[in-house]
């Protein structure tokens, strides 16, 4: 905050006089607000989110006003004075404490004076800005808790309003199951004890609410579950910041809380001892696998240091005398959400160790990475600003806590062994989120485009940092979880496609000589395939150095139409030519069917079944050829010939045949294969179970390392799950509509209709749930069978086992819904031990 220089020189007591007249303060601030407001609502960015510079095309006739439409403040000439003041007030709150400077103390003091004075006039602005600062700028929590304390010390009523508001926000976050916000808010309340704004006993009772389900009731041991782990994690995060105050003011309570936490963590560790279902790196020391145990270690280390956290500047220490006179506020009791699904709880995430770091700095490292993680989570709505703010987090660090790289520095020159390097801490958190198992809080694409923004913000530094971290992970490809390797591949393809495909390709050229299904080679090959999907083959080929010939396809992806130059007998050619002419000439479905019937009727030497099969293949090949130009052509072709295709897909075997013909047609274009299968399911030409059967075709043994099979499996299961969820929604809506109608006595007819539709929806939902069950059970059966068969090579089996684990943990809810059926499969006498273990693990995971 650069107004420090101006206010900084003034004696503390003088602050009040300086701002007696608001005009003076405003003038003081106006100059610097004239620049780019970093946090304000108005953004000086163009339509692509780039900072607006004087580019010629900014003056185009088609140019749009800035995003949000709020033009510059001086436009229109007439100012809304009060709005202006509010914008400035807001901006002051947002910017305070951006840096740990010697003047921060004065800034806080001055700001609290301004706020205290203007609070009544601009209550809403102050409160909502304050609320968002806590939620959106989580790394400045020490600053905002101090500011809240100062406000409270100056004016008890204002303090009461702030505390009550934040407590309301906390209650709301709890009710919604927004655990990330709950964690951030609880940290704020923990720090409020230091400023005498709330009593230690208030914090203790808040923590008590979280520990209620965990606490030892009547001597019974606590139950290890997803919800309890989440609650304990929140409590530990709170203790990290509240421990100091509690030790001073409520040491017995602190000890009691710690005992409960320790008991739970040891139970949790016991229960998860052999659980490697969500382990990212199988070569990592066990420490990383259990984040609760690790956090407890951090807590113990902090406790030993007198609960002092020295990584981040804590301004409240400088206002002890003011806080001593402050009045504390009581708060109403919190309530935990009663009806959240197990999946709605926050999975505490570990921070992966991807680069070396000094072991004696592990507490500081955790504190910083925790802030980085909270910021990434809380600013998900705007990755561009998130990237900018992330680069500021170290601004509040105490001296010597971490190094920040400079553009001149080569990433390899950073001394990671002896000090913490901020950029690497950030990269580790980003990749920890990307690789989080069973799944991250947000889509993978968030962590991809966030990385793109970070690199755009600091091109010289972060390009090297990301490259170094990715290389480290790929070097451990042998022991990384299969799904994680797949995610990293997706990430890398999109990431480098945003930077002209620049990468140190030469470094990896020796991978081309590794065995065909080695993890490293598969990773590289699949990544290149994805890059080609995002671009085109020639472009990528030209860019690759020698040694890559065996890693990219020789030819651009294409179809594999069966009835072309291949040796065909005369009568097959006749049908094919007739079909081709008919479809190309925009012939109707009936005409096409007629051609098939007419021709194959003459084939009296083959039986009905074989004729049907031949006709089916002919139809599917030609429909696919008709649609082979683009995605839209494919949709059109399938849409148009849907009745014929459905007619030919009248049995499970027939549908499997259609799927296999499709696979053969797109043998050299996995992307189109996946798309076509997807759309055939959408148009109900084949059903989801067909896709599962097709994927587990024994012909695919030896190629389980290919990523696109599993892309197709995921797409299919996701689709089935989505249909169930949508139908459940429709059913609820139909029920609500029906009951509303029943209330309305006049609409007797309508009520009947509503009733009918409820039954319809219920019936469809029943079918869908059955379909879901079939898909999950069938996929699991195939997995177990292949893994037990002994027919797979060791490496092929490892790939398949990895995908089995992915399947179990991704669809654990559906797996547990069918636990009994699956158990009888998994615990069949011939099933293997690792399969059983995986199943036991998924049970523990979904407890």
């Amino acid at each position: 905050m650069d107004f420090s220089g101006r206010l900084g020189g003034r004696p503390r007591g003088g602050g009040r006089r300086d701002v007696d007249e608001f005009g003076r303060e405003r003038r003081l601030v106006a100059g610097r607000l004239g620049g780019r407001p970093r946090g304000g609502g108005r953004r000086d960015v163009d339509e692509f989110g780039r900072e607006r510079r004087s580019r010629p095309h900014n003056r185009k006739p088609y140019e749009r006003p800035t995003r949000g439409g709020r033009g510059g403040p001086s436009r229109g000439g007439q100012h809304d004075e009060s709005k202006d003041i509010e914008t400035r007030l807001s901006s002051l709150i947002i910017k305070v404490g951006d840096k740990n400077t010697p003047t921060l103390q004065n800034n806080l003091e001055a700001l609290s004076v301004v706020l205290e004075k203007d609070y009544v006039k601009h209550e809403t602005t102050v409160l909502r800005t304050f609320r968002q600062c806590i939620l959106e700028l989580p790394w400045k929590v020490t600053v905002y808790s101090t500011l809240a304390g100062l406000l409270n010390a100056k004016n008890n009523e204002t303090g009461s309003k702030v505390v009550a508001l934040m407590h309301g926000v906390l209650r709301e976050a709890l009710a919604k199951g927004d655990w990330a916000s709950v964690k951030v808010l609880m940290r704020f309340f923990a720090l409020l004890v230091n400023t005498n704004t709330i009593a230690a006993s208030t914090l203790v009772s808040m923590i008590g609410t979280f520990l209620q389900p965990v606490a030892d009731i009547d001597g019974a041991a606590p139950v290890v579950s997803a919800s309890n782990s989440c609650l304990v994690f929140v409590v530990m995060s709170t203790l990290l910041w509240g421990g100091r105050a509690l030790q001073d003011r409520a040491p017995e309570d602190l000890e009691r809380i710690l005992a409960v936490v320790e008991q739970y963590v040891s139970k949790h560790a016991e229960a998860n001892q052999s659980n490697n279902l969500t382990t990212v790196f199988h070569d990592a020391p066990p420490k990383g696998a259990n984040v609760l145990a690790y956090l407890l270690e951090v807590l113990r280390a902090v406790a030993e240091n007198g609960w002092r956290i020295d990584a981040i500047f804590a301004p409240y220490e400088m206002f002890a005398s003011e806080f001593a006179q402050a009045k504390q506020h009581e708060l109403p009791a919190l309530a935990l959400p009663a009806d959240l699904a197990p999946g709605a709880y926050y999975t505490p995430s570990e921070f992966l160790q991807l680069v070396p770091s000094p072991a004696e700095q592990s507490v500081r490292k955790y504190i910083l990475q925790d802030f980085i993680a909270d910021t990434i989570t809380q600013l998900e709505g705007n990755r561009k600003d998130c990237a900018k703010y992330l680069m500021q987090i170290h601004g509040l660090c105490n001296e010597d806590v971490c190094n920040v790289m400079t553009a001149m520095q080569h990433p390899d020159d950073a001394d990671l062994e002896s000090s913490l390097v901020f950029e690497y801490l950030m990269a580790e958190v980003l990749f920890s989120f990307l690789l989080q198992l069973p799944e991250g809080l947000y889509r993978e694409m968030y962590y991809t485009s966030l990385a793109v923004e970070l690199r755009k913000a600091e091109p010289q530094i972060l390009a090297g940092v990301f490259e170094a971290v990715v290389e480290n992970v790929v070097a451990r490809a042998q022991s990384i979880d299969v799904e994680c390797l797949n995610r990293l591949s997706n990430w890398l393809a999109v990431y480098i496609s945003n930077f002209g495909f620049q990468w140190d390709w030469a470094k990896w050229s020796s991978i081309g000589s590794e065995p065909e299904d080695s993890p490293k080679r598969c990773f590289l090959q699949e990544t290149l395939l994805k890059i080609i999907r995002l671009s085109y083959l020639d472009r990528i080929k030209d860019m690759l150095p020698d040694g890559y010939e065996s890693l990219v396809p020789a030819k651009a992806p294409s179809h594999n139409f069966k009835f072309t130059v291949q040796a065909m007998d005369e009568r097959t050619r006749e049908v094919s030519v007739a079909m081709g002419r008919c479809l190309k000439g925009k012939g109707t479905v009936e005409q096409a069917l007629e051609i098939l019937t007419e021709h194959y009727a003459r084939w009296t030497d083959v039986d009905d079944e074989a004729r049907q099969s031949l006709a089916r293949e002919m139809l599917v090949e030609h429909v696919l050829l008709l649609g082979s130009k683009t995605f839209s052509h494919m949709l059109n072709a399938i849409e148009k010939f849907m009745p014929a295709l459905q007619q030919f897909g009248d049995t499970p075997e027939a549908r499997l045949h259609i799927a296999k013909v499709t696979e053969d047609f797109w043998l050299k274009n996995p992307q189109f294969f996946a798309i076509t299968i997807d759309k055939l399911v959408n148009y109900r030409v084949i059903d989801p179970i067909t896709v599962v059967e097709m994927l587990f075709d024994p012909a695919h043994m030896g190629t389980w390392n290919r990523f696109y099979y599993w892309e197709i499996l995921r797409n299919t299961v996701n689709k089935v799950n989505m249909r169930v969820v949508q139908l459940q929604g429709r059913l609820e809506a139909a029920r609500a509509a029906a009951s509303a109608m029943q209330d309305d006595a006049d609409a007797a007819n309508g009520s009947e209709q509503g009733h009918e539709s409820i039954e319809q929806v219920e019936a469809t939902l029943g079918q869908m749930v059955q379909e879901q069950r079939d898909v999950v059970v069938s996929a699991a059966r195939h997995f177990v069978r292949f893994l037990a068969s002994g027919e797979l090579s060791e490496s092929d089996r490892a790939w398949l086992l990895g995908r089995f684990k992915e399947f179990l943990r991704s669809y654990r809810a559906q797996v547990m819904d069918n636990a009994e059926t699956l158990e009888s499969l998994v615990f069949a006498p011939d099933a293997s031990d690792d399969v059983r273990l995986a199943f036991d693990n998924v049970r523990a995971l979904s407890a």
Partner: protein
Amino acid sequence: MASAAPFDSTSVLSDQFTIVPRLDRPSTYKDHQYNGTVEQWKTDLAKTTTLYVGNLSFYTTEEQLYEIFSKAGEIKRIIMGLARHQKTPCGFCFVEYYTHESALECMKYVNGTKLDDRIIRTDLDPGFKEGRQFGRGRSGGQVRDEYRQEYDEGRGGWGHMRAKQEEERRRQQEESYEAIATIPAGAELKINSRIGGPVGSRNTSAVDDGDKEMQ
């Protein structure tokens, strides 16, 4: 100890204010051919599954679009924007998802990233209507390519107006230009100095005469 004052939660608790503006909000653009009120436009956008996608290269394929846009959710269809007369891609498209959430996630994660080395721009759109797949510029392409002054390889070179001008220049030049047979020697500095240039006995090498000097 004072009890915290009761707080009117409806005013501040529920407002949508954020410090960091969210990226999943529509821009202020409103299609002037949209058939409805501003309010309707807004309600349409609040539940839409469709995005307008701009700044594409003319050569970007549907499959490339599918690859990047499916990162935000399952795609229902893609409608390529075409030049009205030639029926060739003219640098925009509509992407329709199955859910509104996918459209929002696309705004957050895909908007502003690069495809085919170009930064693509997405905006929430009330939904595709027949006819909207065609460019609205006078030449059949997009309006932005009508007036564009820069050369853009991915979007057909010069903007349409500029292309016409360039074409006209080329035509005029071809008509009037006659290649020269002998290259003139040019006046020596000594002679040139009579009209006020620097007087000096230093030789001509001080003046860069390019290739002539080498001969």
